[in-house]
């Protein structure tokens, strides 16, 4: 098993999290945004597993399991909503959405 400093693992998770966040902020395609959110969730999962490994507890891995569950449920509903959005508008551009102060 590895013996790297814990902060390296966390740093790596933070980098993934930041990349995912960048994707959410920068992409206009909803599909990419959803993908970026998955990256963020995955990063949080890494942090949990690392934390669990640090304390030699199973709790971190279990939290990852729950994150996995949530990601599955969310992607299912999310993709369904995105498909509907595409059917309505013919685009995946989030900036094309109306609303705000119309």
């Amino acid at each position, binding site marked *: *098993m*590895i*013996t*790297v*400093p*814990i*902060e*390296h*693992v*966390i*740093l*790596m998770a933070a*980098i*993934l*999290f*930041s*990349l*995912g*966040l*960048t*994707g959410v*902020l*920068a*992409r*206009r*395609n909803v*599909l*990419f945004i959803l*993908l970026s959110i*998955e*990256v963020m969730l*995955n990063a949080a999962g*890494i942090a949990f*597993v690392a934390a669990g*490994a640090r304390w*030699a*507890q*199973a709790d*971190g*891995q*279990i939290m990852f*399991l*729950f994150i*996995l*569950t949530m*990601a*599955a*449920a969310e*992607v*299912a*509903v999310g*993709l*369904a*909503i*995105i*498909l*509907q959005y*595409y059917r*309505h508008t013919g685009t*995946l551009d989030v900036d094309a959405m109306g609303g705000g102060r119309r």
Partner: protein
Amino acid sequence: MNTVFYISAAVAILSTAMVISRLNAIHALLYMIVSLLAVAMIFFVMGAPFIAALEVIVYAGAIMVLFVFAMMMLNLGQEAVERERNWLSPASWAGPVTLVAVLFAEFIWIVSRTGGSLPGGGGLGPKQVGIALLGQYLVGVELASMLLLAGLVGAYHIGRRMPRTGEENEASRAGISIKQ
């Protein structure tokens, strides 16, 4: 082993960077799978083999396949890539990157003030995880089933296709309900 970690981490970070910057959705998805595999590797070397397997099976296997299905249904072609190219001018990256860079700088500052290392040792296999999961986390498992139920019902209701005409499409844009 530590080298494996650093290599996997580098692969994960690079492929994730590719995910968020690709123009073609399928390419991005493939990079995402690479990234997930690399992360699975990291889990493995951190002493979480069970989670590593799940990362491959569920995340890379199931959830990503959902994305593939969605993309097939959307049937995005070359013009989609062109559109993405228009949307993703270098300038459009400036704002998000700056914002996230600041957040990341804060993370570095925080992490740099943290000590401790991984204990090494044998890690925790499926058995320990299973015992904890069906022991003190039993309520959590039940709640996770409810979460999946919500996802299932939600996806079923929203995703159902309905026959519609162009006129109704216009009406729906205006937010007017369609009376049968």
